[in-house]
């Protein structure tokens, strides 16, 4: 009797439990019973994998059919994504990054300060053929040519009415091109040391000039936020590339498509299709004014810099290669890359940062030495270039001086290991 009672009670209890469970399920969890449509579709595509799991793994209870099915599917998909093929985990990817060692580079030091300009040194270019001289343009409207070895002034070229913002020396002609804020681009004959052509057509100051490596074209861009292509000989504007929404800071020409790359204050970098006359790709990763870009001399990629953010991009498609460890660099005015995979960035507060190009590792950071008699506010680095050998770096600064930096010959990896390799997780960002 007693036994029967307890048995009966148990059955009742079970029934009550069942009812309670079902009620609770419908009230609380039924909204999660079905997956969103697109996820469900994805899971259906991977159905075979799920079946395999079902056979080998624990049998699935069929009490609450729709949910368990979907949820278990989701479980399997997640467990699969944790596998070694794609590292979804940020920490795991960072660990893999830390396992690799960046290349060692010798540290850099200042060797020479050249005074002579009366204004900010805004642009610098190297003699591309013989590496014997370099040329600088300044806010004092002049262009000066200097001897590379001795640092002596060779000649001063006057002709612009406002500050000279860009110079470029041609490899294939005896010409030099200069862009100025007086809206003019000038072509200088280096054999006669005179300006021979004016390229007239920009609506506002011209900030940058670049020479096409194969075709007789120059690309210029400036405050009117268009890139203009000029026929060198006829002085005609061949095409105008419209697309930037702010003043353009730098333009680079490449031998194959994209033949023009430009960066602008509207925080974008645009790769241009010259023939179609429109942009191939717009890189919108940067958050602020992209002040500089620089093309790698030995591989088909380039780097771009905005405030606290240097990135390198693979060409021709413009996919992100590396985030450099540049969190506290400040405003970056200039970038230069040499053949030895050293990327230099010069900041607006006079900070020089040297990176390993491939890994993005900041291995040396130093502050520029003030020129004698300059104010403490005059510390910005405005422009820079490596020479053809890559062992010398020339910078133009706001203290009106030109500084020459050289890589140490005697340094060894054990004595000068440089800054430690410790990338932050932000280097994983896209």
């Amino acid at each position, binding site marked *: 009797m007693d036994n029967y009672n307890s048995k009966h009670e148990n059955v009742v209890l079970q029934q009550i439990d069942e009812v309670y469970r079902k009620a609770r399920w419908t009230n609380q969890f039924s909204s999660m019973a079905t997956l969103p449509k697109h996820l469900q579709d994805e899971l259906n595509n991977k159905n075979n994998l799920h079946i395999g799991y079902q056979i080998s793994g624990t049998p699935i209870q069929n009490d609450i059919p729709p949910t368990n099915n979907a949820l278990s599917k989701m479980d399997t998909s997640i467990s699969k994504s944790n596998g070694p093929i794609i590292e979804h985990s940020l920490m795991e990817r960072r660990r893999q*990054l830390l396992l690799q060692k*960046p290349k060692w580079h010798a540290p850099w030091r200042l060797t020479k300060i050249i*005074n002579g300009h009366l204004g900010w040194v805004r642009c610098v270019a190297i003699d591309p053929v013989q590496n014997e001289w370099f040329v600088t343009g300044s806010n004092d*409207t002049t262009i000066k040519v200097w001897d590379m070895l001795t640092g002596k002034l060779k000649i001063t070229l006057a002709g612009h009415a406002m500050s000279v913002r860009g110079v470029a020396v041609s490899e294939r002609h005896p010409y030099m091109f200069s862009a100025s804020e007086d809206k003019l681009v000038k072509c200088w004959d280096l054999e006669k040391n005179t300006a021979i052509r004016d390229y007239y057509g920009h609506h506002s100051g011209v900030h940058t000039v670049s020479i096409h490596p194969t075709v007789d074209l120059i690309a210029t861009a400036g405050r009117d936020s268009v890139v203009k292509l000029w026929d060198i000989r006829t002085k005609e504007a*061949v095409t105008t590339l419209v697309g930037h929404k702010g003043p353009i800071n730098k333009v680079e020409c490449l031998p194959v498509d994209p033949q023009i790359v430009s960066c602008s204050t509207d925080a974008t970098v645009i790769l241009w299709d010259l023939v179609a006359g429109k942009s191939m790709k717009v890189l919108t990763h940067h958050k602020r004014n992209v002040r500089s870009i620089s093309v790698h001399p030995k591989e088909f990629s380039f780097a771009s810099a905005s405030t606290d953010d240097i990135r390198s991009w693979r060409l021709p498609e413009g996919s992100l290669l*590396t985030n450099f460890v540049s969190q506290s660099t400040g405003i970056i005015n200039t970038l230069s890359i040499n053949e030895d995979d050293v990327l230099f960035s010069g900041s607006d507060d006079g900070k020089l940062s040297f990176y390993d190009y491939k890994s993005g590792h900041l291995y040396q950071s130093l502050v520029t030495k003030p020129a004698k*008699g300059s104010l403490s506010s005059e510390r910005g680095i405005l422009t820079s270039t490596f020479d053809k050998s890559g062992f010398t770096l020339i910078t133009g600064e706001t203290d009106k001086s030109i500084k020459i930096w050289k890589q140490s010959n005697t340094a060894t990896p054990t004595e000068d290991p440089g800054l430690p390799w410790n990338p932050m997780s932000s*280097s994983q960002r896209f």
Partner: protein
Amino acid sequence: MSFSSLLPAPLHSGTRSSQNQRNRHKEESKVNALLKDEDNNINDDEPNEIDVIHRQIASNVKFEDFIPLRQRNFAMEIPLPTEDAIRQTKEKTLAFLNRLQRDDSKSSGNIIGKKTDATIMKIGNRSVKVVTPVQDPLQPSRFKRTGKIYTPNVNQDKGPTTILHDLSSTTNPGKAISAEERSKWKIPTFVSQWKNPNGYTVDRVTGNGEGSGIKDINSGFSELSEALEDADRKAKQHLQEKNEAKRIAYENEVAEKEARLKELANRRRYNGSHNNEPLRIEKPTTPSHVNNKKSNDNKSNGILIQKLRNIAKQEGRDISEKIILGTAKATAVPEMNYDSRLYMKGAQSSARRHGEQLYDNPLFAQQDIESIYRTNYNKLDDQIETESGEGDIMNKVNKETGNMNRGPIEFTKAIAKEDEKNKTNKPGLQK
């Protein structure tokens, strides 16, 4: 409405809206195409177009696309473009440029180095032949510069001029800078210490606030303040005069009244002397006079009062009772008895008071402070002994404190009063 310009139509011209509508229609049809399945029926299960877009993106983008490419392998090779690719691009670009030039020259516009045909235009009844001149492609620029071009003094012997801030290499390097000169070059704080690329300077004479910097203040300020001060002064003076005049007028009035009263009194006196016996009392209100009288005898006092009353009646003056009585009564000189100890105490306290001492003497000087709250057992014992015969301790305590019965106050009926009340309140005729 139609517009010849290639620019977008004006905002409210109407054409734009229709175009927009058309565009929207086109977009909708696109979305519908995506939503439609094989049978060309719009699938109602699909929630919205956003979902469709999401799915499209999801199908095209993989997670690996969001990882920087060189993360896994620093040594990843990215070769430079091959010679072939470069050559092909060059050819393509050149072909494009040629085509561009051809198109340009064909569609007019470009006239450089090309002989164009003459066109004949008809203006009115005359025909004009229009010929564009041939331009030399290498001719110098026709655009004239307006800006002043800086030409440096290029002297190769002297070498490059050093930068401006280098003070050691100025024209007279031997001369040291005096403190005065240095102070002249001090940049005021309101000129930016950070960057001043255009070299703005501030007029040091007026900007520094030194010396004659104040000379150019507008004279209007001083004039205004002077005028205000003047007005204030005048107003004050006016007020003062007015008050003075008021005071004088009042005084005059009072004096006049007094004189009249005097005259009246004199006349009265002479008149009275003619009629009745002469007035003996010159100043009837003087208390000492009356006092003396009063002190002399009471009898004459009553007579005097009567006399005064009579005089007043005769003169027609209304002298109040009080005044008459006042003349009769002496003002009481208060006899005060002061406790001499108060004087003594005050003198003592003031004598020995200084900063730290707040009170005259200690509060418990006479008693021993130690045992204020201590039970004096001897005293208690004595008391108990003496009062034990009369009652217990509680009783005694109650007696001492005055509370004979503890507990709530009991109200008793005031019977006698009630009866009285009843009597008075009774309506009707009272006994």
